[in-house]
């Protein structure tokens, strides 16, 4: 079973901008949802979402935190 990296974004209040708050390793999207909610539970988030890192497409640089190893790096 291969885990993938999912980046976690959240905002505390309606109207706030989504902020990158961390990442989780998970076997699939459903596990990533739960892991993110349970791992980053220090706030009463208004909204949280996860995205598989490999689905993030770098725009202006290839050495950013989300572009390592075809999107699967940490």
């Amino acid at each position, binding site marked *: 079973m291969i885990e993938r990296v999912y980046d976690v974004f959240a905002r505390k209040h309606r109207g706030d901008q989504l902020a990158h708050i961390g990442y989780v*390793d*998970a*076997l*699939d999207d*459903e596990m990533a*949802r*739960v892991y993110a909610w*349970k*791992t980053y539970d220090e706030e009463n988030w208004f909204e949280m979402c996860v995205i598989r890192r490999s689905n993030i497409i770098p725009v202006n640089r290839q050495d950013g935190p989300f572009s390592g190893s075809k999107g699967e790096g940490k």
Partner: protein
Amino acid sequence: MKELLEIRDLDGTGISALRRLILTLADSKRMMGIRYSDWLLGAPSIEAGIAVSSMAQDEWGHARLLYAMLKDVGLEPLKIEHERPAEEYMSVGALDGAFEHWAGIVAAMTVVDEAISVALLGFSRGRYEAARTRVPKMLAEEEFHASLAKAWYRRIAESSSKARSLLRDSTKGLLPPVLAWLGADDEAAKAMVTAGVTKSSESMTEAYRDRLRDLAALVEVNIDQVQPDSGWDKDRARGPGCPDEDAVERVRGDRNRALLVE
């Protein structure tokens, strides 16, 4: 909205039945929490360990809210939580022992936690005000438990034959005591249905089978053919046996009794 239940309108049978219903839910929640807590450091990944840690906290929080309802029916929650022997626990028998492997706790997450949620859903839609107001938040938190359970159940079902076999055996072992617990149809259970406090055992069992049918089929378990355990103990609302002593000592906080502050 249904007319709310007035506790003073319940007769002796009704009060006993409501005590039993609250206790069986609270004790099952507390034992579910203990079983999750066993895996804080042994889960397959850090994230899975954090998740079961959080789920253990959820279960204990839910149990605490349920025990508090006992005040309405003349029982002191503090004594109930900290002074009963294992033989008096009313938790579902499927949680009596620790789970030896990850497939076992995933099966419990799926088979047992889901059954408790179905029972709580029936309770939350009845006439008892405390259940109507407090249980919906529990059920919202339980949605994450169910999501994780289903995701892991599918993963293990699709993995090696050994893991799949462990999941199948665990599922087969857990279902009979759970079906006996959820399908209880004795006098006290009927009294709660008649009083509008909860749903009928038939409807809850049907809803439960519907929720689990496809998942169980992944490991060749036909949930419609599984029979509930026999040997129902109506006084404890469960089958024979009781939780292991080590777990109950942890539940009661025996080792730190001197520090108990309430």
